């Protein structure tokens, strides 16, 4: 079966000389809920930027459902929806337009787009806020708009870069439920988060990236057979276990 995402020896060096991704290879099965973990600056967001076309990979290959994300970027982009970590929108535009424009870029016809935008605006409780400029919305509402925008093209691969950072418990729970629904319906999801609880609850496969390399990956169950569970495995994989054990012992 063609993987939903296949990254082979991805390397990204920024113009400044910073090596953001040293050598990342990973495979996401279709229909998987894939957790992509790592400390700040480990290379998670840069990897996502390379997958989605926000930045150029220096070397390596990325295939989305078998489509080369660089050579055949148009077809590859059609399959992906992205909710980035940072708010990358026109702050003066309103919520409805932000979602609608993205549907337009994806070539969705007006009627189809309206139906989809209406559904997402309602699904994310944005109806009373749909006409407000983005900059006037609270942090949680802004996050909802970004999530709705990521889903407007009904992507086969949904990439969520810290989607619940800074949002209230209610939205987090609601989003978890919705993501599980989408995943049940066949959407492959790649999720990055600093909340291990979120990864534990949602993901079936986990990869840990550290210093631009995948240091551990496998089915979620593998991480839970070890004492200390995911947290312990995460600290061990990122080389922080000894440090934390020493702190705990004091």
């Amino acid at each position, binding site marked *: 079966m063609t993987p939903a995402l296949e990254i082979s020896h991805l390397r990204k060096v*920024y*113009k400044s000389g910073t090596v953001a991704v040293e050598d990342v290879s990973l495979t996401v099965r279709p229909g998987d809920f894939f957790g992509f973990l790592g400390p700040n600056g480990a290379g998670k967001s840069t990897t996502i930027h390379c997958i*989605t*076309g*926000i*930045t*150029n990979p220096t070397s390596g290959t990325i295939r989305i459902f078998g489509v080369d994300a660089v050579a055949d*970027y*148009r*077809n590859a*982009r*059609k399959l*992906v929806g*992205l909710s*980035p970590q*940072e708010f*990358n*929108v*026109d*702050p*003066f*535009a309103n919520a409805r*337009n932000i979602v609608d*424009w*993205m549907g*337009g*870029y*994806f*070539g*969705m*016809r007006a009627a189809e787009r309206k139906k989809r935008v209406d559904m997402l605006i309602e699904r994310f409780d944005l109806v009373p806020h749909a006409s407000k400029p983005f900059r006037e919305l609270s942090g949680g509402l802004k996050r909802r708009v970004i999530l709705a*925008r990521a889903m407007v093209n009904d992507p086969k691969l949904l990439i969520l870069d810290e989607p619940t950072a800074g949002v209230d418990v209610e939205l987090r729970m609601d989003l978890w439920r919705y993501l599980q629904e989408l995943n049940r319906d066949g959407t492959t999801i790649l999720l990055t988060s600093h909340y291990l609880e979120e990864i534990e609850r949602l993901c079936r496969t986990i990869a840990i990236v550290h210093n631009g390399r995948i240091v551990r990956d496998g089915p979620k169950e593998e991480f839970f057979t070890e004492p200390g569970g995911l947290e312990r495995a995460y600290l061990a994989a990122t080389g922080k276990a000894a440090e934390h054990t020493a702190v705990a012992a004091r």
Partner: protein
Amino acid sequence: MTINWIGLWTMIRREIQRLARVPIQAVVAPLISALLFIFIFGFVVGGRISSIGGYRYLEFVLPGVVMMNIVNAAFLQATSQIYFQRFQKSIEEILVSPLSYVEMIAGTISIVILRSVFTAIGIMLIGVAFGAVHMHSVAEFLFWVIFVSMIFGFLGIIVALWAKTFEQLNVLVVFFITPLSMVGGVFNTVAMLPGWLRWLAYGNPFFYFINGLRHAMLGFNEAPTTIGVTLTVALAAVLGTIVWRLYAIGWGLRE
């Protein structure tokens, strides 16, 4: 590969909505500037000049004023659109979408042309009010408006991709566009220049743009049309190719 017309139209309508938020900058400012030029050079100065090439001074100056505003509108539109989208990171919405690089550029240039055409029409309407508008050839007029807009749209995109600060956006305007447009024959014919300075006019691309538009409006020509047309088409093609290449390698966009 089919053209993503809906994506292209979305780029255009989005930018129209953005421009609607800044009507003074987008619409009123160039019209007031043109009105002042027409008033000062058409009446105050023009009142002391009998005629140039058989035309009232105001009629002679008007094509140059239109061209200066087309150049400014095109350059400003391209730089502000791309630079602000880079600054806000909202350009990532375009980068993650299934638009080809050519479509991304075409979307930006379409708006540039649209804004230039509307600016030109606005100034022409002011000119009509002063009885100074002639139209020798509509096809030529459209050629000059569209191709010059494309040239300065492409230049604007290059500058917007290169700029790291707001101030850098103005470098080309201050040191290149304004001086060359001022000495490009807006206010005078080449024959009015001293002999030793005429090479400056013939080596200045703005002279051909202004001369071309003046020919389209008045039928008054100071250089062979083919030279101006060839230069303009070649410049648009070269700059368009450079912009396409920059998008393809992601310079200033996906570094």
